[in-house]
């Protein structure tokens, strides 16, 4: 094989546009009906592009592998700004277990519309066979679906999130021991687990987010560091960061609070109010984080980002907070992401020094109220759309009288206040309910009427106990 022949730039651009149009049409179909003007225009544009291509070149296969998209076997080169669209497209196909779709010449506009809505509107219970049946029922004959090609992961995907989360706890424990014993940190091992967090997040962001609802105050640093890493990567992914950037973000977020190890435990866990000296000790922990990582040597780019993130994570968007700054004028994107994730997790975690902590719902309210002062407002908007107004772990009272725990936000931006919940008290314990679903009249049969605060009893894992069977 000689080196690949340089491809025509126009062809590249066309394929890239085609993937964008397909992704855009699928996303639009999630929120808008078929007769909506935006939806119509989206499908029209895609239809013209597909017709043009299939009439010229014949059947067109669009496939995914390792989070890359291929058109007729050629990788579509995407830039950083394409990443969000690309991720959304890949996830939509993944949800159905689709590895490739082939559009045949002669596809009609009606077929394309039926295909788009068949794929976009399927909820979390789908698989490839279900989708194929649905498309046959809807007379979609000109799109053939294929299963994914073999992946390199042999592990049970259901056990991976828990294993990944558990690995983070273990490695943080090892880090803690190394730092206290003044030994070298094995950054390589930290990288391995943080990379696995990113991998997991790219496969299924809610599986790990659900685990962040386990907040233990006896191992607070371990679970908090892990939670901040997970929340930061989830937000970074929504912002369109690329995989390698997510890897650096995850590492930085995971190690952001290492400085707490240098603060006396008596102060960290002191019940009640801190005096000035104790407050000052606490406020030094971002500087301690810098010191700890500096002493490790091996200052690679990702370690530098970790040091910066650790230093910045208590500095607010308006540059208030601590440590007090002498000249620094702005915060890095990673710093702003970690600050938001850190604060959200911290205030919604039970601690010995307060009788009750915020519920996840109150915590998200706090985040919204402080957008523009403590937090970057742009990030707040994305963060809330990601975890919803009733973030996973929120215990809610339903209009039916049941009590449920929020598992993940409702699908689509307009459903951030209507999560998917699992009933934990009342009738149908263990059953999941999608509060964004409407009845035939277009009304919501089930709504949230109240929020419970289990306080220091701890929060509820936002997951089905069945999913823990391999753990």
């Amino acid at each position, binding site marked *: *094989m000689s*080196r690949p022949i340089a491809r025509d730039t126009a062809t590249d651009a066309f394929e890239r546009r085609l993937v964008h149009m397909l992704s855009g049409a699928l996303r639009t179909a999630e929120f808008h009906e078929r007769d909506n003007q935006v939806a119509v225009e989206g499908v029209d544009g895609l239809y013209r592009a597909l017709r043009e291509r299939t009439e010229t070149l014949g059947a067109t296969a669009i496939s995914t*592998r*390792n989070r890359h998209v291929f058109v007729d076997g050629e*990788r579509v080169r995407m*830039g*950083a700004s394409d990443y*969000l669209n690309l991720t959304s497209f890949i996830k939509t196909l993944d949800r159905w277990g689709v590895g490739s779709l082939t559009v045949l010449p002669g596809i009609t506009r009606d077929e394309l519309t039926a295909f788009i809505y068949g794929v976009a509107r399927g909820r979390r219970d789908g698989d490839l066979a279900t989708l194929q049946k649905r498309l046959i029922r809807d007379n979609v004959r000109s799109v053939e679906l294929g299963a994914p*090609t*073999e992946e390199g992961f042999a592990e049970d995907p259901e056990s991976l999130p*828990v294993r990944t989360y*558990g690995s983070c*706890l*273990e*490695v943080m*424990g*090892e880090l803690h021991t190394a730092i206290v014993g003044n030994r070298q*940190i*094995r*950054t390589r091992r930290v990288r*391995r687990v943080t*990379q*696995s967090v990113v991998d997991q997040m790219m496969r299924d962001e809610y599986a790990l987010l659900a685990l962040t609802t*386990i907040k*233990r105050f006896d191992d607070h640093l*371990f*679970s908090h560091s892990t939670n901040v890493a997970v929340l930061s990567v989830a937000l970074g992914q929504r912002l*369109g*960061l690329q995989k*390698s950037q997510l890897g650096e973000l995850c590492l930085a977020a995971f190690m952001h609070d290492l400085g707490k190890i240098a603060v006396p435990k008596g102060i960290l866990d002191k019940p009640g109010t801190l005096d000035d000296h104790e407050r000052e000790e606490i406020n030094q922990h971002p*500087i301690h984080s*810098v*010191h700890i990582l500096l002493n490790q040597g*091996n200052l690679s780019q990702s*370690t*530098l980002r970790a*040091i*910066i993130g650790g230093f910045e994570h208590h500095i607010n968007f308006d540059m208030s907070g601590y440590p007090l700054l002498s*000249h*620094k004028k702005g915060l890095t*994107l990673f710093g702003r992401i970690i600050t938001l994730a850190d604060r959200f997790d911290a205030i919604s975690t039970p601690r010995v020094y307060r009788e009750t902590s915020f519920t996840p*719902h109150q915590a998200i309210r706090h985040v*919204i109220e402080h*957008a523009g002062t403590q937090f970057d*407002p*742009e990030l707040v908007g*994305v963060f809330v759309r990601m975890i919803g107004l009733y973030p996973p772990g929120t*215990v809610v*009272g339903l209009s039916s009288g049941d009590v449920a725990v929020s598992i993940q936000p409702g699908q689509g*931006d307009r459903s*951030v*206040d209507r999560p998917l919940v699992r009933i*934990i008290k009342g009738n149908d314990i263990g059953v999941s309910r999608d509060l964004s679903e409407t009845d035939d009249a277009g009304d919501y049969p089930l*709504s*949230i*009427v*109240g929020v419970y605060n289990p306080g220091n*009893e701890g929060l509820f*894992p936002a997951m089905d106990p069945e999913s823990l069977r391999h*753990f």
Partner: protein
Amino acid sequence: MSGQEEPPSARAMAQPGDESPAQMGVRSGPLGRPDSDERASHDLATEACAALYRAYRAARFYPANHPVAVESLDALSQTFARTLDEIGSLKLTVMPEAFLFGDQAVFGGDGIRDNIAELMFRDGIRSLTFHRGIEHEEVSEFVWTLVRAQEIGREEQDLATILWDCDFAHLDYSVTDPLLEGDDWEGKGQVLERFRADLLDKAAHPEHIDLGTPTATGPGEAGSLDDPANSIIMQEFSSEAISGQLENEPDVLFEFLEVLTEVLVTGSTDEEVGSASKAISDVLSSYLDWGEFGSLTLAVRRLQSISETTPARSTEITGILDGLASPDALRKSIFELDGKLAERRPQLEELLYLLRHAAYPSLVELLAEAGGKTSRKCILNVCTMGEGVPLPLVTAKMNDPRWYVVRNMVFMLGALGDPEAGSHLEGALDHPDERVRREAVRSLSGLGGPRANYLITSSLTDPAPSVRILAARALARLGQPDAAAAILTQITSKDFPGRDDTEVEVFFEALGEVADDRALPFLQDLWGGKTFLRSKPMAIRLGALKAMGRMATPEAMDILARASRAGDEELRRQARRSLLEAERRAANR
């Protein structure tokens, strides 16, 4: 497959570390000889592994653009393409010293140098799968990643973490569980166990938890999108803008430096301040090493500003800047100016001027070593800007045993323009090396003044013709009438006619520039040419005419007018030229 014919690809190229699959110890697997299809696939896999190994070895020993490295990567791409076209995917199981394809060994064995299977196994890679469609770019990156994995500090990264960053589209790999290795530590396993227990308990038995009373919520309230306070949620954001933010952020090293300077100011312990200082020094050194003078200048300005506003940190900052300004730190940056990086001189000069108080000793030291014009110019510019380098730093080097060091110091003294430098230059006129004495004459001519003129005049008697010539030229340029007698003394000395023509010419030109009519009798005698014993050499006679042309006095012109009627053609022509020169000069007075 010991004893089988060597695959063609293994014979194709002879490169460092070449071993055929047979030589690499490839042997049949536990199941014995495979059938013909399997055997064909096995052979292809063996060939692909051999090509991979060759490309890896070439990449290790040659630069990326070396023909051997390039050709072996091309060959690897071709082999992969051929193999994957045939068998779809090439899945290799990584063993401690071998690759298996199915259950057959296709690479490896004892005694292979740079065994890539060993490298992968060591770093936890347990399988590799190459997929059809793999691109040359991916193949190349994979090979270079293997090379990098040999060179990195393993505490920080390993092959698995680097491969992850590469995000290959057509290459899958599996890695061991990160928790299978690592140190034993107190509490290992307990954290996970507590987490497990908590998780299972809460997930399975939520009904045990006392939930208290719910807070009401509903449409239009805080929990609803209808609440105006929640309008922020629906605001659009641009992923392009976010990507742009990341790309437009100052480089991570500069952000890091900002953090370090903050820690330097606010650190509460000596250790924190010390580690921040050291890290700042490291960052600044890196900037210097990379030629990032713009960022470095910004950082130095900031540190100097902190030093002024936070006196408690001035000792640390002085230490940092002293380290940055050491000869060892500056040498590379300054001397690189003599190569391809000459265009960086203005930025480096700006930086060095900012650092000048710490850098002067180093600059003086480096000037001693400076061989190229641009580096010397850079140092001299910095040392002579503003108040200039303190004289004692320069004069302390005047007794250096290396002639070129003294020469450069002499050069600096001249460039400084400090009248006090004259007395130090005086000693240089006695230096045994004429190159130093020449530089001293140049520097003295730059300084000017009666003492400098006197010293230059004294150099007219220097044993080296080159020094005498320079001195004469300097006096001519300076137009020193006091020097006329000394020049004339030389011209009329017995040995003068035997000197080199150039020196003779320069001395007469100098005399013409500085002498008045009192010199004319001597010049008339000289051009006339007759002495008691023999004729003056022609060079002397012509020189005298030239000198009078430069004097351009009426008397000189009269003599030249007469000389233009001389019997000798050459003298006549020179006299006419000198007369024209005299008339031109007279007209311009």
